[in-house]
């Protein structure tokens, strides 16, 4: 039995149900999905870059994602993650086929969680998941707010 496939199929059903119940608000409820893995790894770092890089090392070493890069732009509030061959990609593809825009990325949740837990970021949220089933690549945009002064900063994500 392919355990990942089995797990992804269960997640698809749960995500569809949750979306059906809560519509767009479902995305606001799932920020803790996936964080147990990374919390068990005792990630270290004193800057966002260090924390993110150390998360990526653990995520790729475990085989959850094959290749992963990141960038922080847009007045330091936009985090963009690029992932290739994530174990959850089939889940996102299935959701997309079923007409539900993917809204849970456990890998992104791990990194956002560590920014909050290790660096005391005030708040974060995942804003956009774009998958390319042909190339096996995901691009995920998130907003990351270091402190209260950052909250309310806005940037044009298509340009900055």
């Amino acid at each position, binding site marked *: 039995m392919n355990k990942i496939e089995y797990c992804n199929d269960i997640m698809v059903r749960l995500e569809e149900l949750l979306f059906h119940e809560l519509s767009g608000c479902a995305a606001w*409820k799932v*920020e*803790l999905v996936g964080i147990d893995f990374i919390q068990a790894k005792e990630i270290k770092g004193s800057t966002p870059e260090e924390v993110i890089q150390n998360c990526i090392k653990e995520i790729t070493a475990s085989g959850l994602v094959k290749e992963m890069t990141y960038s922080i732009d847009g007045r330091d509030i936009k985090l963009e993650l690029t992932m290739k061959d994530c174990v959850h990609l089939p889940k996102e593809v299935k959701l997309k086929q079923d007409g539900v825009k993917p809204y849970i990325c456990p890998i992104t949740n791990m990194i956002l969680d560590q920014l909050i837990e290790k660096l005391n970021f005030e*708040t974060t949220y995942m804003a956009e998941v774009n998958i390319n089933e042909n190339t096996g690549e995901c691009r995920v945009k998130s907003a990351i707010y270091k402190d209260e002064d950052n*909250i*309310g900063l806005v940037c044009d994500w298509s340009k900055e």
Partner: protein
Amino acid sequence: MTAWYCLGEMQERFEKIKDPVKKAEVLRFMYSGEVSEFAKHAPLVIAVIGTLMEGSVDVPYDLSAAIENMLLEAHSLGLGACWVHGPVASTRDAKKFKEILKIPTGMGEYKVIAYVAIGWPAEERKHPRPKKPLEEMVYWEEFGKKERPEYE
């Protein structure tokens, strides 16, 4: 009878703003938390929570109906009231909110769905809120059928 649908209408209105400075101001307001700050000045704020432990079914719907009743009652008394969901919408924020009020934070214990700020309205509403024509929303006998059947 309509229930106010927040995000869709807001998005539509936001897209109509052309002035980039005004647009930036509105964005900052929306994302700074100020959009919910009026509740800080309300004489009464009711945290609406429901138990998930005592044979509860459909808790979010029960709580939502209770909130609507609160709003109607407040309005009937000449008060102003607002259903505030944003600050407790995310899982982390809901937990923080529960901790402030010492509400048990277990996911199987209590659900906090929103809070309701009640006070005296600062102003009369100037414009009626936009509504879709009834013909666009009402179907007869089957989904999509707009013609009202003739009954004998």
